[in-house]
């Protein structure tokens, strides 16, 4: 195992980190304004991936090109996120984090089993071509699709950065995250901000699901729930509720999983993420980026 193996592990880590980053940012955005950990978040990934498969595969009578199917699925799941929030979480939003957390576990079961009841547990995959990895500068290899996943992730990160820093919604979100009652007193419609955040969060989850499905096929309805632990690890590593920390944490987790698989044992890929999660909780519960939203 020489330099090429090392570089390949770095590249693979960055690719997987790209998927985790989109998912982690979505999760952390919703935590920032709602202040509870949403265990149903994994289902947004699953619904994103499955909806894209069906939209691209012509299940609803139209067969969209994959990018268009991904965009439509992302928007639909974003709307689903708002619907889920209004139905299950808003009515109990003043009862503290624990009832919300428990409810989110229940919502996760409901969404997952609804999907299973509808489409079964058969493995599915996106209609994408299988490509051989191309050599880049003689140093590492990756496919055009993997390159596309990194690009999509970077664009998503930049969009979220601009949204948070340059738009009124971003400012309202940051204000609501910092102090909800103060934001409300200042005239911000926090309920509306929370709904918009739910939309963004679920949409980011759906996009992460699509990117996951591009890289790791075939998949089953449990895919999002199983991947949630990895996203949690990244979110906590970055400091929960902090989008930039989540991005950083995601790439750390992606790299750790791939280095562990390459140099220790490939049988424990997700265990490395779990180890980091435990380590962070023990040693630095505020995350590596203990700063602001």
């Amino acid at each position, binding site marked *: 195992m020489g330099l090429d193996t090392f570089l390949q592990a770095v590249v693979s880590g960055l690719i997987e980190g790209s998927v985790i980053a989109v998912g982690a940012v979505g999760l952390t955005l919703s935590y920032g304004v709602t202040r509870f950990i949403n265990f149903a978040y994994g289902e947004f990934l699953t619904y994103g991936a499955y909806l894209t498969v069906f939209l691209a595969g012509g299940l609803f009578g139209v067969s969209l090109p994959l990018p268009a199917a991904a965009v439509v699925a992302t928007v639909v799941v974003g709307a689903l996120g708002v619907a889920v929030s209004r139905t299950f979480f808003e009515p109990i939003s003043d009862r503290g984090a624990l009832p919300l957390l428990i409810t989110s576990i229940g919502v996760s079961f409901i969404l997952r089993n609804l999907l299973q009841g509808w489409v079964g547990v058969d493995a599915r995959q996106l209609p994408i071509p299988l490509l051989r990895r191309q050599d880049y500068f003689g140093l590492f290899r990756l496919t055009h699709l993997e390159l596309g996943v990194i690009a999509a992730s970077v664009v998503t990160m930049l969009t979220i950065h601009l949204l948070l820093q340059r738009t009124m919604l971003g400012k309202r979100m940051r204000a609501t995250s910092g102090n909800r009652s103060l934001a409300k007193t200042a005239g911000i419609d926090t309920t509306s901000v929370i709904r918009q955040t739910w939309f963004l969060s679920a949409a980011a989850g759906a996009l992460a699901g699509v990117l*996951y499905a591009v890289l790791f096929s075939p998949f089953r309805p449990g895919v999002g729930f199983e991947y949630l632990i990895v996203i949690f690890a990244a979110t906590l590593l970055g400091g929960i509720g902090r989008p930039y920390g989540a991005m950083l944490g995601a790439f750390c987790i992606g790299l750790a999983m791939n280095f562990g698989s390459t140099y220790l044992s490939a049988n424990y890929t997700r265990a490395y993420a779990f180890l980091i999660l435990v380590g962070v909780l023990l040693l630095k519960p505020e995350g590596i980026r203990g700063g602001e939203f």
Partner: protein
Amino acid sequence: MEVDRRAFLRRTGGAATVTAIAGCTGDGDGDDDGDGGGGDNTTTGGDDSSLTIGVLLPFSGNYGWVGANVLPVVNMVVDEINEQGGIDGRQVSVVQGDTEASPDAAVSATDRLVNVENVDGVIGPTSITMSAVIDTLIENEVPVITPTAGTTSLDDRGGDYVFRTVSSDSLGGRAIAKAARDQQYNSLEDYERMALMVGNKEVFQSFKEPVRSSLKEFGGTVTTALDIRTGKASYSSEVQQMMESDPEICVLIASVEDSVKITEAGYQASYEGNWFVTQDQTNQDFLSQSENQVTNDVLGLNAAAYQSAQSAGRLDEFFEAITDYAGWDKGAKIFATNTYDAMNVMGLAMKQVAASSGDLTGPNVADAISTVATPPEETVTAYTAGASAIESGSDVDYEGLVGPINFDENGDIVAPFSIKIAQDGEWTEAGRLPPEAL
């Protein structure tokens, strides 16, 4: 079959089909998700004096297709037995025990079959749960014929109460090594350097040692033997590790889903060697989930059609019968022929015990299992003919659809293997391996 099959189906088919597939809604050809449900329902009714056959298999979960493939065949033979007046005047009923392909569920399903249902014989289980339940079955003196468990863990445990109508993985592993080494069986080349990638479950691990030791015996080299965790999202690292050992061919022993991921990871990483897969993947399910550029020239092991049954038309006759009976779209489903042989032997063994005025106890039936399938007695190929011969005082030798069904001292059979090669999304036969070649 000597019974007038069409008349028999007219009489029993309609109602029996409904009961046979009740609770097994999947099409069960290996690509079913197995959510058949209803795994613990009694499918054929019986009274207190009836004999009970327990079908101990996964009816739900990812391996639910196994139960869905086996149960209709058991019911079809049971209906044939009952049409002949049952055994010793007692009707035969069937009870399902859903193992869910999980050792825990298998243990409770077995306890229920043995202690609550008081089954007189068991068809099943699979390799996945064999280790978990074999002690209970043997200690309770329950005769078992499994059409589905090739596991090597049974190699030295069978012969008294446990028998099987499917080849041991010891033989299957040997067949893979032999076929890989010898171009006359694989039609491509004499492969010398071989890697192994083996899923970390008993059902897969069972193949590992037979392949490895046989390959050495046949003059090959094992470049690496990797145990892989099943159900992972990606196997890029494992494939990279396998490729670093520079094999000419890699034997892949894993589930269809993992095999798709692994072969695709090999393609993406420009792996230039070939793949050899086991019975679990040598099916349309595997090829339809992968692209042809990945699977072309992949070699697969499969049970070969038994020449004698094929030339006599018995295989086609069975496929037609079970297709009509179960409402399947095709008769040649995995384990269907093995089940037909298992249930016929079970029925004939019970008939033999009854005819010799013995009690239908576990030990007596288990003793008779070998007796009714051992030459050189009168050869029979179905229950009705066998029962008639037994009633007229003859000893019988059941000859099956998968092979001559002559159990050795460990309750194992030998059967021929077929080596398949994938070409443009279809499996075609590259060569045939008779048992004597192994």
